């Protein structure tokens, strides 16, 4: 590589992504003795995890002593409509408390109980008060703690570096290729094990709570490298995003607002959750609350800006400012609303991808040797719907496991080298974005993609809309090879950045739309207007996505991965639900 003048680095373990799961994986890999590198698109500490507000679900039992891993496991399975990978839900429930305590030993500071232990708050779908939190900025606290731990853990960090290709040698992933955003200089990495911690793909929708970076890079890179993905049709629309003003539409309003006692009402002043889930009310699971708000608006009971009212003005104003400080600021600054005095207007916003790279629960390894995935980039843990608070637990539990898994693979591996032809191929793609003959503007294509997904693959779906969306995505397939950045300059070129991201988002959109068409039922976050009920068949099957290109994408129903020793817990929960 060096003879071609391309900057090159070699690691035992290379992590892509600097959100919670990437940082936790890097720490674990470095602790296991691996020479570890970490590549991130943004600056360190800016990843989408900073947006997490509500908390980290861990059955510490500090507030509710009767809580334990088995209830957390059951809640997660129920929330996921039993499509979860059972082993992942088990590991998560069992290990989250240790990961929370560990974080505290690394300097994280969380709110306390009167007994001076970590406090825990109520959240949708959790039987007990379970979410460790600090105000409404729990994600920031975690990212800062992990960020500091990482930079003091002998991990080399490459900030503002974009990876455009994974590089394989035979069947095995041996590294990756990309460029430094600040200069446009090309860069390659060889690694004995590579961990995708690239998060989700919310930017395929216009209305999203996701950061700019969430463009499904890991899903697309893994797919192209031959990995399997699971259940991509399950996209979580968080029930409460801001709906006004237009510039901030989609911006997250934390579930902690409801956890702390916020009430949802429609334009007629009715507390409408009574009609949809009288038992759990505002703290029903996210899929139910999102659909309820959507239905209220659609049936003409929406607020002036097309949402529902979310009200905390009955709570003590100082309490609101202490427990929900960033929500208070956010509404005051951006919408001119004082939430201690008047209700917020909220509506569903694309928030999280339950699907992702199919991995071994214990080690995070994908079907492709040398390729690991963790956090939102991996799939299975959350089934058809994720409970709030389970993402921050997920990224710690499985970040650590993927880091250790990757380090174990690396430690057992000899040196790897990048095949020159694969590198040349990757280089040619970037050259094409800059100097090719194409004339497709990535900014425009991104907008088109968002419209297709919003119109046809949103919160409610049907065969007609999905088929139409897939047809339009296929039209984009034909044009995607002509993507070219409007400017060919190298330094901090936003068009260049978006070219590969649009390609990734298109691949991800295909997975979602095709999975949604195949799954002829409504379950969790996936709601079909033409198949409104549960299907017994689909209740036992995940959809595995694999292929080489968007044209050759195969989707295969595959039985849910169960475990005998957990059968009793799952059955007990199903019985209890039936009884109530």
């Amino acid at each position, binding site marked *: 590589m060096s003879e071609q003048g391309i900057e090159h680095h070699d690691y035992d373990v290379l992590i892509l992504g600097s959100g919670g799961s990437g940082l936790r994986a890097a720490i674990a890999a470095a602790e296991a003795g691996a020479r570890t590198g970490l590549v991130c698109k*943004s*600056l*360190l500490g*800016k*990843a*989408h995890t*900073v*947006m997490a507000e509500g908390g980290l679900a861990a059955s*510490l039992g*500090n507030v509710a002593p009767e809580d334990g891993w088995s209830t957390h496991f059951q809640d997660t399975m129920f929330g996921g409509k039993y499509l979860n990978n059972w082993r992942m839900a088990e590991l998560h429930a069992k290990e989250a408390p240790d990961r929370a*305590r560990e974080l*505290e*030993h*690394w*300097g994280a*500071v969380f*709110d*306390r109980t009167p*007994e*001076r*232990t970590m406090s825990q708050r109520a959240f949708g779908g959790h039987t007990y008060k379970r979410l460790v939190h*600090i*105000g409404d900025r729990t994600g*920031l*606290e975690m990212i*800062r703690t992990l960020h*500091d*731990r990482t*930079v*003091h853990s002998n991990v080399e960090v490459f900030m503002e570096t974009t990876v455009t290709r994974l590089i394989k040698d035979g069947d095995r992933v041996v590294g990756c290729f990309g460029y430094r955003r*600040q200069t446009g200089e090309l860069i390659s990495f060889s690694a004995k094990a590579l961990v995708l911690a690239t998060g989700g793909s919310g930017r395929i929708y216009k209305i999203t709570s996701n*950061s*700019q970076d969430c463009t499904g890079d890991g899903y697309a890179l893994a797919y192209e490298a031959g990995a399997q993905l699971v259940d991509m049709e399950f996209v979580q629309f968080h029930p409460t995003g801001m709906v*006004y*003003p*237009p*510039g*901030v539409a989609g*911006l997250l309003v934390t579930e902690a607002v409801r956890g702390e006692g916020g009430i949802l009402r429609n334009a007629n002043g009715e507390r409408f959750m009574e009609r949809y889930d009288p038992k759990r009310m505002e703290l029903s699971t996210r899929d139910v609350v999102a659909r309820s708000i959507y239905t209220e608006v659609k049936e003409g009971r929406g607020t*002036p*800006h097309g949402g529902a009212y979310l009200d905390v003005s009955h709570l003590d104003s100082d309490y609101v400012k202490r427990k929900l*400080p*960033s929500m208070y*600021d*956010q509404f005051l*600054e*951006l*919408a*001119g*609303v004082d939430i201690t005095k008047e209700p917020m*207007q909220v509506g569903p916003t694309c928030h999280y991808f339950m699907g992702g790279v199919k991995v071994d629960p214990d080690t995070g390894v994908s079907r492709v040797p040398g390729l690991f995935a963790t956090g939102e980039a991996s799939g299975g843990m959350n089934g058809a719907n994720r409970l709030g608070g389970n993402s921050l637990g997920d990224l710690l539990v499985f970040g650590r496991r993927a880091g250790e898994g990757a380090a174990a693979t690396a430690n057992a591996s000899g040196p790897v080298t990048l095949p020159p032809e694969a590198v040349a191929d990757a280089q040619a793609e970037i050259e094409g974005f800059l100097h090719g003959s194409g004339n497709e*503007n990535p*900014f425009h294509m991104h907008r088109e993609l968002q419209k297709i997904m919003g119109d046809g693959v949103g919160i409610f779906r049907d065969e007609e809309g999905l088929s139409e969306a897939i047809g339009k995505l296929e039209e984009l397939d034909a044009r995607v090879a002509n993507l070219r*950045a409007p*400017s060919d*300059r190298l*330094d*901090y*070129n*936003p068009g260049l950045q978006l070219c590969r991201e649009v390609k990734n988002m298109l691949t991800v959109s295909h997975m979602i739309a095709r999975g949604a068409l195949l799954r002829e039922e409504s379950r969790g976050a996936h709601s079909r207007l033409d198949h409104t009920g549960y299907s017994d068949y689909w209740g036992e099957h995940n959809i595995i996505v694999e292929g080489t290109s968007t044209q050759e994408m195969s989707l295969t129903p595959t039985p849910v991965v169960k475990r005998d020793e957990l059968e009793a817990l799952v059955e007990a929960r199903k019985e209890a639900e039936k009884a109530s």
Partner: protein
Amino acid sequence: MSETIDLAHAPGPRKLQIWRGDLTSGELVEYELETEPGMVVLDAVLEIQRSQAPDLAVRWNCKAAKCGSCSAEVNGRPRLMCKTRLDHLPADEPITVEPMRAFPLIRDLVTDVSWNYRVNKQITPFTPRESLKPGVEVNEKGEFLIDQADTDRMSEFRKCIECFMCQDVCHILRDHRLHDRYYGPRFMMRMASLDMHPLDGVDRLDQIADEGGIGLCNITKCCTEVCPEGIHITDNAIIPMKERVVDQRHDPLLKLLHRTPNKGRRKPPPRTETPTL
């Protein structure tokens, strides 16, 4: 509610003057665009990027005032572009958007803030004291026992989103360019939060005073004024630490007794690397 949005500043065309250029040369370039209600500066800049200036360099990520990426000088004052509404800025004049000045320019609105990361790496991280008292400081499950009051105190500084705007306006850094002698308000605050942790076992006094250069701060409170999180950087972080440095370094009685009120806290290993800009 929406109705309270000031109709005097209703949507319409607005002019933005955006700094375009690199280290060698640059100028303010004027753009005009149609606005919509509640639009923030970042919306306007991205719309200009999308439709008029596709090579305009701007760093942003969350667009929710949580990641601290999109810091810039708007009408001469450091602000998060994603949190600054157009209709809160004077309607009768163009809005100027310029990069932060305390850091080297990369291009247009993007600056090289890597110096901050080098400083952060110099700060000894949280390290729990070697022997924590069972039942008082740590419980049987290994969980820390901490008062909510301590949490609240630390929490103010831990709200920092690292937008580096406090660094941008700090005279020591912006005007005197003493990046190799002063860590800046962001990292004074960082050390304050570590110092206030009741179970931390590191004595950072020398680092705060020597490598950190806290003595250089002359308490003009510019950092506090621009903090988007409303952190009282000067009053609650810098001044108490300055007082502690004075007390412990210059108190004749303590000197005489050869003791520090910090006993039990370990000195960090010496750090010799000086982060230069």
